């Protein structure tokens, strides 16, 4: 059943995102897509559907929604307060959203990017192979009050599943590999970078995250004469005043500021989710270590479905308790429990 998700209030930067678009790098458009890829895979696992489907990415705060048909939702990424018709919802879990019920998603308790997935996916327009909004490129726009978002056909009905909440919402240790411009920085500058505690500056968006420290700037040799070169997400660019910026999913494709290193892809979610003021430390690892970490992350992603557990609900919070068939399936109230099964 496909329907429409209506937006009756919206935080300032809610966008439709998926895994992004490949193949346009040569034309100045990078892959982009979700800021926290793990959250996208978690949503897909919770709803038992393809990770190719699009979800709503909510920065810092959510909005108010209702669907005109019975539908399913999953909430992942930065935990936010959430309720359906006033009943609080567990984060990192899937829930039924009955037709007309009011879904309210508030501010993030920790982290930055929260995700609202719907069964069947948000069926926004496909442009150049993706539904992902890319604001700086002019592809799509932020979700606004009054928007009616088409929902794709939902092939399943399962709800009430949860995944353990990963700890990736409060900064921490970030692994970095050397990249093509690392050797423009003297070893002592790199060492100091490795030992510095950074704070995530409030200046951050899908293009980049500024890092503050009390350590002074980190300068490359001859840094004003560096040729503009390819940029990839995760690159740690050092601006003219010596401040590091971690470039994120919606960064440009080329740039002239030198890059001291690159955050390994599986740790980039942690940078994206770090809230303003969170402490981050960068440590250079060997290519071999990075390879192992990436492989492990990819295995964990494939195992997500196996980590799902059923939500146990407190009957006191179930408004419509009598609607539920509380005794069914495995145990019958009337049958002889010792009888042989057929």
């Amino acid at each position, binding site marked *: 059943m496909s329907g429409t998700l209506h937006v009756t209030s919206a935080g300032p930067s809610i966008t439709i995102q998926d895994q992004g678009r490949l193949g346009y*790098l*040569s034309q100045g458009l990078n892959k982009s897509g979700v800021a926290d890829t793990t959250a996208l895979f978690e949503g897909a696992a919770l709803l038992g559907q393809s990770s190719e489907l699009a979800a709503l990415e909510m920065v810092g705060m959510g909005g108010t929604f209702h669907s005109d048909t019975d539908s399913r939702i999953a909430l992942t990424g930065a935990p936010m307060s959430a309720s359906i018709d006033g009943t609080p919802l567990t984060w990192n879990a899937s829930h039924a959203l009955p037709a007309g019920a009011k879904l309210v998603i508030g501010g993030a308790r920790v982290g930055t990017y929260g995700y609202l997935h719907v069964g069947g996916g948000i069926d926004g327009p496909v442009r150049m192979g993706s539904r992902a909004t890319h604001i700086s*490129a002019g592809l799509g726009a932020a979700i606004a009050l009054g928007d009616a978002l088409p929902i794709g056909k939902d092939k399943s009905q399962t709800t009430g599943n949860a995944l353990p909440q990963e700890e990736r919402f409060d900064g921490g240790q970030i692994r970095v590999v050397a990249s093509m411009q690392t050797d423009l920085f003297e070893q002592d500058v790199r060492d100091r970078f490795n030992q510095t505690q950074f704070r995530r500056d409030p200046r951050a968006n899908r293009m980049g995250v500024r890092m503050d420290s009390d350590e002074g700037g980190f300068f490359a040799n001859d840094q004003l004469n560096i*040729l503009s*070169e390819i940029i990839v997400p995760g690159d740690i660019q050092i601006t003219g005043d010596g401040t590091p910026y971690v470039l994120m999913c919606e960064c440009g494709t*080329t740039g002239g500021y030198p890059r001291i290193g690159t955050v390994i*892809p599986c740790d980039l979610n942690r940078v994206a989710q770090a809230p303003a003021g969170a402490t981050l430390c960068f440590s250079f690892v060997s290519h071999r270590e*990075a390879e192992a970490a*990436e492989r492990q992350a990819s295995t964990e992603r494939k195992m997500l479905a196996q980590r799902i557990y059923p939500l146990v609900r407190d009957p006191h919070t179930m408004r419509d308790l009598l609607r539920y068939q509380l005794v069914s399936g495995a145990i019958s109230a009337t049958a002889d429990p010792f009888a042989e099964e057929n």
Partner: protein
Amino acid sequence: MTDFPQIRSVGMSGMLVQFAEKVSEPANRAALAFRAALQAAEWSEVTETSTSLVSTFIAVDLARTAPQAMTAKLQALLAAQDWFHAPLPAGRTLWQVPCAYDEALAPQLIEAAEAAGVSPEQAIKELSTSRVRVLTIGFAPGQPYMGELPEHWNIPRQQTLTKSVPPGALVVAIRQLIVFTNASPTGWRHVGQTAFQTFRPEAEMPFALSPGDELCFPAVTANELRKITAKDTSGNGGAQQEALT
């Protein structure tokens, strides 16, 4: 002196072949030709390729394919020919893009002319008759970096950024021109205005230009540009195009 080409890894995202440390015509030609060869080779581990001014990027998941293995393959391909003298890519287009140089639409023309050491009239004459090549596309979708203008146009970027130039703005610095895709802050000087859309997200062919294409910016008045904008809804801004062989 370091020898070129050089092969480097780019984080865990791929490999970079650099053909020079400064912008030059042969190195740009090499980067374009090497990318074309990579596209033709269709290596299964390569997800996409692109060029910057004088380098070619090869997107490869380095967690799955070791950089050493990629380096060896790239070295073998590099050895196959003299890339600095390779022909330009096939299927290039010459674009004549009408451009207004009136002061109201080109607020920094006088300043740029002064930096280049020519009169404003001479600047318009040179900018409107120069033929430049798309060296690379980047920063914003479809946005071309074009060069090279004569040596006296080797003018630096401004110390401070202009808050915003409109889409279609023609800007100049370091012997290069850019036509802006979207309204954007820039350190380059705004010397002309076109109605050319480099990126057309709703169109079947969203990107108007390819690296290697050549462009001229013949002068029209502000009034003529207004008429063009009203009449030409294709995104071409009244531009004429012809195939280059």
